[in-house]
Structure formats: C-alpha cells, structure tokens
C-alpha cells in the first residue's frame, strides 16, 4: 500500500486555518507536540477523501502554527519553518495547503511567494471570500489561480462553502511529487543580494531557496531557530553584516514588488465611489500594496471606535478581564463543589463496602483523593480556555494586548502575559497552561515563574483561618475597613508587587531577552466558530488530565503515605497526642522545628506545611488532624479557637499575631502546591524549572517570614 500524502497546512495567523483544518479532518486529529517545546501541531486524515485514487490512503493534513513569513522569530514560527523545509531528519511534507485571507492578499501573498520557493505542489484555499466580497475586494479564484499558477479554491469555513472542492483538490495530490522551486532572482537593482547569494552558492551547502531563507534568518539573528547546520552558519558568518542587511532589504522589496505586480493584474470588484480616497489613481488596483486603505477593516474600525477608545477601551478591557476572573474565581466554584462532593460520596461508598482498614484508606485518602485533586481543576481550566479561545478567535485578544501593552512593557513582557497573570489570582494551574499564547520561550518561562506568586484562591482559607484565630478580624480600623480586611488586602498587594518585581528581575538576569517587540496584527473582528473553541478546550483539558494529572495523583498517594505511616494504635497515644505526630510527616515536622522557630512556628505548623504541599488549603484540614479536630476544612471555628488558646510549655500563647503574620507572609511566597510544579513540568518539558521554582520560592518565603518575625520582635511587637 502506498503511504498517505502528507499535506502541511500553512498560512498567516487569523486566516481561519484551524477552522478549515477541523472541517477537512472532521475534527478527528492527534495533537502532537514538537519535541522539547510546547508548540502544538495537529495531524489528521482528510475526511472527505472520495476523490482519492482507488486504494490510495486519504491524505494526512498537518496543521502548522500561523506565520507571516518563513523567517522564524519565535518557537511557534520555527516549528512552521522546520516542518515546511523538513530539515534535521524530519520528513518534508509532500504538498502544502496554503490558506490565504481573501480580503487581505496584499500581505498574505508574501508568504505565498515563500511557499512557492519550497518546490512543493501547492493548493491555495482562498478563505473568507464572503467577507472579501462584502468588503468589495472579492477576487475570482480562477484568475488568482492563473496568476499564481496553482489550483485555488474559494472557501468559507463558517458555511462550509468550497470544502468539497478543496477536498477533491487535495485528494489528487501524489506523494513525492516535487516541483521546481520558484525563486525570486536578483537583478541589477539588487547588488547586495546578488553578491551575497553568489558568495553562498560558491560553497557546497547553501543554495537556492534555503540560501534566501537563511540569509533572512542571519539578518534577523534567528539562525538558532532555523536549525542551521554548523557548515551553513560558517558560510553565513563569512558574509559582511552590512551586506546581509542590505541583501535582505532588497530580497523583501523584490518579493513585495512581485506581490504588487500580481495584484495589479487582478481585476477586483469595484469599490463604491464613496470609498475612493483622494489618493486613488486611475488604473490602479484597489488591492495593491501602495493603497493604504483597508476595506476589510471598515466594520471593525467602527467596533474599535468603542473597544480601543481612549476611555471606553480601558473600561471594556476591565469589564472583560473582570468577567474572566469572576468565571474562574467563583463560577467554577459550584462545579468544583460537586466534584468534591462526588469524590467524597464515592470514598464513603468504598469505605462502607470494604470496611475500615489500610487498603480502604489507601483507596479513599490516596487514590480517590488524588483523582479528586486532579479533576477539581477541570472547571477552571475549561472556563479559562473557553474565554481565551473566544476572545482570541473574535479578534479581541489583540485589542486587549494593544491596550495593556504599555504597562506590561514596563516589566519587560508583552501584553499577552496579562491574562495568564490575572488568572493566577484564581488558580496557578490554568494560568500557567494559558501562557502558551506567548510565543517566546524565555518570556513564557518568566511569566510562568511569576504566576505562583499571584495570590491564588487556595491561599484564602489559610489567610482567613489565621486572621480569624489570631486577630480581631472585625475590629474597625479606618472608616468601613476592618483589620481583617486590611491584612487580607496587604497580602494581595504584597503578592502582586512581589510577582511584578521578581518578573522584572528574572527578565534581566536569569532569562535575559529584549522586551519582545510588538508587531501585533489587529485583525478584523469575526464571530468565533464555537465548535473550534470547544474542541480546543477539550484538547487542553485532556492534555492536563493525561500529563499533569498522573503526577498529581502519584504525589497525593505519596503524601498520604507520609502523613499515615508508621501507623500507631490509638490506645497508645498520650494525652493530647494525635496519630499524625508519629507519622513520617510528623517526625519531619518535629525535626524541622529548629528551622521553624526563627519564623515563629512550631512543629505542628511544620506538619501543616508538609500536608499543604498537596494544595495550600489542605493546611487547614492537616492542622485539624494535628489538633484532633475533624472536618476542620468545612468549619474552621473550632480550629481557630484551639489555635487562639494554644499555650507553649511556659504558659505563654503558642501563636501570636506576629507569628500568624509571619506564616501568612510565608504563604504569599511559598510554592505549597505540587500541582503547580506538575503543570510547570508539563509546560516547560523539564524538571529544571519546577525544581528552580520550588527552591527559589521556598527560600524567598522563609527569608520573608524571618524578616517579618525577627523584625517584629526587634520592634517589640508580638
């Protein structure tokens, strides 16, 4: 049997590439990760494959990240480049499905020219022809096909128009049928390009299309991303940098001149007279690049009059962000409650059926609790990705980045880091997963390192327990403000400022890279295709369950073991003793006491800290176990009481306001969350960053708590 034809699906961002891919494959695809980095490619068989020759397998489509050109500037574009050019042992595709935005050929055709340089058969999907027609810039596909010399099919992903024709076109492709690369050749007006290409082609390695791509990558300083070989690098390094810069300018100008030549030959639907600007010159195409009007943006410009308005813009931005935050902070809550109740009921059932015993405990407190710990994140992850997907696909996310960029640039990040950071206030897990929209790996890692400092909702039960136990929470301090409220507010402020400061530091030390440039397309607004968004929500959730979920489950079981073994007979316990004291965690807590004392804590809090590594809020139930109070996580009033009344051996209070404050500050900084570490491993594809995160956060937390406790004592507090 012949192997299936592999077709790479390429195109600019925002051209509806993924929608077309989903329609062509019937949304049956595998999500593949590029080795070493989390840039996704999707791969699926053509569903409507009726047109393939008898016996031939259906073509396989590979959806690539969107890219404006074949010069990679970030990891996602590098994946597109490497897959298309097929270097370093990867199989080159047999053909390319190039998706073009029919309403913006003046920019889209630049990538088309580069795709023609690949020397692969190409089929063009002229997508969103409906919008182009509405905007008065419709192009006849036959004419474009004649101009480009490749088959062109007009499509509308929304309605499915042109899909069958496109599938038929793809079905006729044959494996291994290369074509002659179509190269732009420098003329007398391009001396630098001619010189550089001649010099490169004198060597053995670099010639033709690859010489042109790598020349651009060399000029952009992005050879690393291209996976250039040492020989290629050596050859490029011999060129004079000034000549390379000139050559690239000439090369890009040459390609755009070709784009303009193509467009000038294409007759387009006439624009109404009112749309003609004064700069319209007779005989010039409405599409040509030197006409700066953007007909496809006419409707969007009206929407932007509100959404990026000087005053209304930021207001809408705040409203949208508040909505996202609200959804993951509180709308997810009832669903999470049901999941917890469900897991609880299941545990009860297992306990009833099996009767008390070690195996029952392992199942209920280890395995089932672990499954619960994983599944409980699903509502937040799904909601966050639903919102992000809808906002991305509608075109609003680009506007949000446009509005907030100024502030984010101060930290050295771009506007796309805002949503992940904001989501961090609800939960670091979905927030860290959502950093995938940031294309530079270093900037992603900086954002990932900042997120766990944002005060997530799991810290709230700890703060309220300590404030309730050690402070008079309702005491009025200033007008309507109570001391409890103010302490809580200062914890949030501390966490936010610390995250921003540490982000700025990491960006300048550990992960030095220039502030990412903002060359951000503001695409026309479009109604998102909800099915595509839901598909993506499902992909992300399944990915979390599969990969991070296993780690979380395993660590839950280990933590249960640490808190339960060795087991002791209840009859042997002394007065006031609880079983947890004799467990491994209990012993570690006691061994840690000398280190905990300087920050105002005792071994009991130490056990709580070990238990809360499962999740911060588990601090409350673990302390409950230490003090022999059941269900402390449901009603923490008895536990508050005990903590307030607890006395040290000399009769003084065991916990003071100052030690409570020190513990809260510890929780602001400490990485008491194994799920965060599991997700960071998933997203960075190594244990290096989670290890760094755990160690750095714990050290910072300890030092901060030390400063608070010892400083407070010096000042005579506590």
């Amino acid at each position: 049997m012949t192997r299936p034809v592999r077709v790479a699906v390429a195109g600019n961002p925002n051209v509806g590439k993924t929608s077309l891919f989903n329609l062509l494959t019937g949304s049956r695809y595998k999500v593949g990760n590029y080795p070493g980095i989390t840039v996704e490619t999707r791969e699926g068989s053509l569903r409507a494959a009726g047109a393939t020759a008898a016996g031939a397998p259906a073509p396989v489509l590979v959806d690539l990240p969107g890219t404006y050109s074949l010069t990679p500037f970030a990891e996602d574009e590098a994946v597109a480049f490497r897959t298309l050019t097929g270097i370093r042992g990867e199989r080159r595709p047999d053909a390319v499905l190039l998706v073009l935005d029919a309403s913006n050929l003046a920019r889209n055709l630049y990538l088309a020219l580069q795709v023609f340089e690949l020397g692969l058969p190409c089929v063009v999907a002229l997508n969103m022809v409906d919008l182009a027609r509405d905007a008065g810039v419709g192009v006849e596909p036959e004419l474009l096909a004649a101009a480009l010399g490749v088959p062109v099919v007009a499509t509308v992903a929304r309605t499915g128009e042109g899909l069958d024709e496109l599938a038929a076109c793809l079905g006729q492709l044959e494996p291994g049928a290369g074509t002659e690369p179509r190269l732009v050749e420098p003329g007398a007006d391009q001396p630098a390009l001619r010189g550089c290409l001649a010099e490169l082609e004198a060597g053995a390695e670099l010639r033709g299309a690859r010489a042109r791509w790598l020349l651009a990558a060399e000029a952009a300083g992005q050879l690393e991303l291209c996976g250039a070989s040492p020989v290629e690098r050596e050859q490029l390094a011999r060129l004079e940098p000034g000549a390379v810069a000139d050559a690239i300018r000439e090369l890009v100008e040459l390609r755009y001149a070709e784009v303009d030549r193509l467009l000038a030959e294409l007759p387009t639907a006439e624009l109404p007279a009112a749309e003609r600007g004064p700069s319209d010159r007779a005989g010039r195409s409405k599409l040509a690049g030197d006409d700066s009007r953007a007909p496809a943006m006419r409707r969007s410009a009206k929407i932007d009059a509100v959404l990026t308005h000087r005053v209304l813009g930021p207001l809408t931005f705040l409203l949208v962000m508040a909505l996202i935050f609200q959804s993951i902070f509180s709308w997810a809550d009832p669903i999470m409650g049901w999941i917890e109740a469900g897991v609880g009921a299941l545990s009860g059932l297992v306990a009833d059926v099996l009767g008390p015993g070690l195996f029952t405990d392992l199942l209920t407190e280890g395995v089932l609790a672990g499954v619960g710990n994983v599944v409980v994140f699903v509502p937040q992850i799904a909601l966050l990705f639903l919102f992000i997907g809808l906002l991305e696909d509608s075109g609003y996310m680009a506007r949000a980045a446009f509005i907030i960029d100024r502030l984010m640039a101060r930290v050295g990040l771009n506007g796309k880091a805002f949503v992940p950071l904001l989501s961090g206030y609800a939960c670091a897990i979905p927030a860290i997963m959502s950093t995938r929209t940031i294309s530079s790996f270093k900037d992603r890692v900086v954002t990932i390192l900042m997120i766990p400092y944002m005060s997530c909702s799991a810290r709230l039960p700890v703060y309220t327990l300590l404030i309730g136990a050690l402070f008079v929470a309702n005491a009025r301090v200033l007008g309507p403000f109570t001391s409890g409220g103010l302490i809580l507010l200062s914890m949030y402020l501390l966490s936010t400022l610390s995250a921003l400061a540490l982000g700025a530091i990491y960006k300048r030390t550990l992960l030095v890279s220039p502030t990412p440039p903002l060359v951000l397309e503001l695409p026309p607004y479009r109604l998102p295709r909800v099915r595509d968004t839901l598909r993506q929500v499902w992909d992300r959730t399944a990915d979390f369950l599969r990969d991070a979920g296993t780690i979380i489950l395993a660590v839950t079981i280990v933590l249960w073991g640490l808190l339960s073994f060795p087991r002791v007979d209840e009859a042997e316990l002394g007065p006031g003793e609880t079983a947890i004291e004799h467990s491994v965690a209990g012993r570690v807590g006691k061994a840690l006491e000398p280190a905990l004392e300087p920050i105002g804590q005792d071994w009991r809090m130490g056990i709580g800290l070990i238990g809360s590594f499962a999740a911060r809020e588990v601090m409350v139930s673990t302390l409950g176990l230490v003090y022999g109070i059941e269900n402390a996580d449901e009603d923490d009033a008895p536990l508050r009481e005990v903590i307030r009344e607890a006395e040290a051996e000399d009769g003084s209070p065991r916990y003071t306001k100052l030690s409570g404050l020190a513990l809260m500050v510890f929780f602001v900084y400490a990485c008491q969350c194994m799920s965060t570490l599991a997700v960071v491993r998933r997203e960075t594809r190594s244990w290096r960053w989670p290890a760094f995160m755990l160690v750095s956060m714990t050290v910072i937390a300890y030092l901060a708590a030390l400063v608070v406790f010892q400083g407070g004592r010096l000042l005579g507090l506590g």
Partner: protein
Amino acid sequence: MTLDELDLGQRAQVRAVTGRGSMSVRLLEMGFVPGVEVALVKRAPLGDPLELRLRGYHVSLRRAEARRVEISGVGA
C-alpha cells in the same frame, strides 16, 4: 521624519527601515517596504503603542519600533 511623528489620521510613504537585526527584518516582512503608504489610525489609550494601517490591514507597533521607519510625503 519617522513613523512615530505622524499625527492621527495622517498618511505617508515609507522611505526606509533603519537599523539591523530581528526587528528590521520583521518590519520589512510585514510590509514596511519603501513606497508603501502607511496611516496612523490610533494611539492606544496609554499613548503607546500605535495602530497603523498599511497594505490593507492594521498593525500595532510601539513608538520605539515605529521610530525605525523613515517616512516622507506626509499628507492627510
């Protein structure tokens, strides 16, 4: 004159992209080639970045990046 000095609603022709490196190549490939008409559509609410229109689409650049684009023939 450079692109960041345009007034709102003004158009001009790109003369050249100055400087070298990643940003220059990206600007060229996004269509900022000599002769192309660019208009300043809007400034972001905080004054930066800028929203520009060229080659039938809208793109946002920071002022610092727009400064690399030399322009001429400014008009309304």
